[in-house]
Each structure stands twice: as structure tokens, then as C-alpha cells.
């Protein structure tokens, strides 16, 4: 006679409960006490290297020092009478090549030297005439 399905299910559940209970008993022997658990050194604590602590401190300090220096450079004003430091830097920074820098700075000892006036200006085309019906008329007229 076949075993009823309900009874078989209950039997399976009991068997599973028994298997889990054995596993729980196995593990219970190895479980630490609360005091042992709180006092134990975790793997992360053990792996923490004191040299790395210095590295963690040194990196932000270096970054802060660099930021402070950059701020000091950008905000320090030139002294009265002293040659300006920023002008040549800006001029050089805006040039594409040393030749451009030479062209931009006339040399008086060479009688005028080179200048941008040697470069012919591009032809200027006449502005197109605006007719009265053009949509590009800049100003609108309003009648009252």
C-alpha cells in the first residue's frame, strides 16, 4: 500500500529537521563565547600595517601642501616697483612657438625689429547691405 503524500511530506520534513539539528550540534561545539568574540582580533585588524597608516596620513598632507602652495602663488601680489612676474608668463603662455614670441616683442636695438605689421592684414569684405525686408534687421519697430 502506497504511503499517503501528506505523511511522506511530514517524514521528509522531520528528516531534514534531524539533519539540520546534527549540523547545528556540530557547529555549536565550535561557537565562541561572547567574551571571546568581542576580544578576538579580526582578520582586518591583523592585516592593518602601521606603515600604511603613515602612508594614509602622508597622502592627504602632501595634497593639502600642494593646494596651499598653488593658492599662495595665485594670490600673492607683486611688490611696488618690482618687475611684474605675471606679464611674461602670460605672454609666453599665450604664444604657440618661440618665433611667435619674437614677432610679438619688438627689439629696439635692431631698429624696430620684427613686428606684426609685416604680416599683411586679411582683406576686409564689405558688409552686405540690409534691405528693408530682411529678417536680420536688428531692431524691431513698434507702432503705438
Amino acid at each position, binding site marked *: 500500500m502506497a504511503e499517503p503524500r501528506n505523511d511522506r511530506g511530514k517524514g521528509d520534513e522531520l528528516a531534514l529537521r534531524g539533519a539540520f539539528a546534527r*549540523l547545528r550540534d556540530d*557547529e555549536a561545539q565550535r561557537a565562541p563565547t561572547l567574551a571571546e*568574540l568581542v576580544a578576538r582580533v579580526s582578520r582586518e585588524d591583523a592585516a592593518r600595517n602601521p606603515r600604511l597608516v603613515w602612508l594614509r596620513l602622508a597622502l592627504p598632507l602632501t595634497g593639502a601642501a600642494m593646494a596651499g602652495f598653488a593658492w599662495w602663488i595665485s594670490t600673492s601680489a607683486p611688490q611696488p616697483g618690482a618687475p611684474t612676474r605675471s606679464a611674461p608668463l602670460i605672454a609666453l603662455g599665450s604664444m604657440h612657438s618661440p618665433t611667435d614670441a619674437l614677432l610679438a616683442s619688438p627689439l629696439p636695438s635692431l631698429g624696430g625689429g620684427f613686428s606684426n605689421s609685416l604680416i599683411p592684414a586679411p582683406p576686409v569684405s564689405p558688409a552686405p547691405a540690409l534691405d528693408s525686408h530682411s529678417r536680420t534687421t536688428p531692431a524691431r519697430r513698434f507702432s503705438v
Partner: protein
Amino acid sequence: MTRPELEQELRNMLAVGRGWALAQSNWNATEADDVLQASVLKLLDGRARFDGRSSFRTFAFGVIRQTARERRRRALVRSLILLRPIARDELAPRAGDASRASAAPDARLDHSRESALLVAALAQLPGRQREILHLVFYGELTIEEAARVAGVALGTARTHYARGKQRLRELLGDLAADRDANG
């Protein structure tokens, strides 16, 4: 809950809590102890506060699960930053890792053969089924409490429970047959 009451509750659930931490750590005992320690410290120093809306065991199991997830996420991020391959133990146990799981328990934990079979069979279940079965059978929670710990609806938990039970029974039968055949 006063401090002595909290400590007493923790003592009462420490053994089953460790089992739950083991299940969350792919049965790696060292990782499980780290998870359990971090969870207990969270409860003791008030970072995880029990508000009495559920049983303490349900709450503590939820804290352990959350802690294990945080540690896995942190290990993943660390491995990405340091460009090192992540250790398998640091990842969540996955279903279908049958060959590794069946070989691992004997090496990792000195289980009895019956328990080793059960651990190997559990490792082959999908994660949700494994969690629900573990919480109900090992943690002795109700299905409703297990659903709360696992963060799923009660109906979903019931489905996982029924399917997981059936699958576990089949797997245990297969593994026992294999063991008998291999002597």
C-alpha cells in the same frame, strides 16, 4: 533593552548566529567569525538598535546578513581598486558551485559525514531557497520571520521553502547514492 539583557540575548543566539554567519560566508569559518564579531559589536555599541518590532533573533539574523553583505561589497571594491583577483571566499556563495562546495566542506570544517552532505547539498540550491531553509530549519524561525530576515514577501518565502525542501531532498538522495557508490 538594558545592556545585561542584550548580552544575555546575544549569548542565547550565538551558536545559531554563527551558523547563519557561516551560511552567509560560504562556510568559511574565519570569515564567518569576522562577520559575527562585527555584527555583535554593532549590536553592543548601539549602531544596530533593537526596537522590539520583531523577535530579537530575527533582528540579529538581519544584522548578520546585512554585515556579511557589506563585507562582500567592501571586498569587491577593494579588489577593484587594488586590481587583484577577489578570493572566492569573499564572494557570496552561488548556486551551481556543486563541485567546489562538495569538496570544500570537508576541508574547511570538520563536519560529520552527514553534515558535510547537507552542506554540500545546500550549496547547490539557489541563494534564496538556501537562505529560507537555513533560517527555518537551522535557525528555527517561522517562515514569516525568515521572510523578514531575507527581505522577501511571505508568499515568496513559502514558495522558496516548498521548492527548496523538495530540491534538497533530491540532492541529499543523489549525494548519498554517490557516496555509497564511491565507498
